[in-house]
């Protein structure tokens, strides 16, 4: 998993079977210092509660689809958790 910041929402009008109603959010990947790093990606929201501005943890790969209710869907990134806090250990 990696940290990301939700920066927007995507509203698709046609999706493949199994992805109906799944929120799609724009996520800016962050580095360990919480600075933006890399290209913005679209992630399915498995929590269904994330919104713009929130810090999230997202998973990539096959495991992304497994986080959704319908698991056999073409998804490569999914938001797994909304991050309330990050503690950097001394």
């Amino acid at each position, binding site marked *: 998993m990696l940290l990301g910041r939700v920066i927007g929402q995507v509203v698709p009008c046609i999706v493949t079977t199994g992805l109906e109603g799944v929120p799609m959010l724009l996520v800016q990947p962050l580095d*360990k210092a919480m600075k933006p790093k890399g290209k913005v990606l679209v992630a399915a929201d498995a929590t269904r509660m994330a919104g713009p501005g929130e810090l999230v*943890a997202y998973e990539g790969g096959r495991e992304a689809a497994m986080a959704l209710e319908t698991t056999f869907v073409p998804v490569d990134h999914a938001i*797994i*958790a909304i991050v309330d806090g990050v503690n950097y250990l*001394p």
Partner: protein
Amino acid sequence: MILGRIIGEIHGTIKHPFYEGKRLLIVEKINPAGAGTGDYLIASDAVGAGSGEDVLVLDEGNGARQVYESADGPVRSVIVGVIDDIYDAS
């Protein structure tokens, strides 16, 4: 498996049910000499690793699910060992 060092911990209330009660740690990837590479990942903890420790991280889905004896958990990165010492003979 990859080498890492625990640099932090994240917490959040809203997350995928699979991650209820599991610690999520921020792990910086390190090279065999012990220096950080600048890259990181968030891994769940299966061994009880703590702050600043060097750890062994499994970054592969099927093995990760096997660790948790789960057939459908959306998990890919798991801390599966704590490293005492790295001996690089090269």
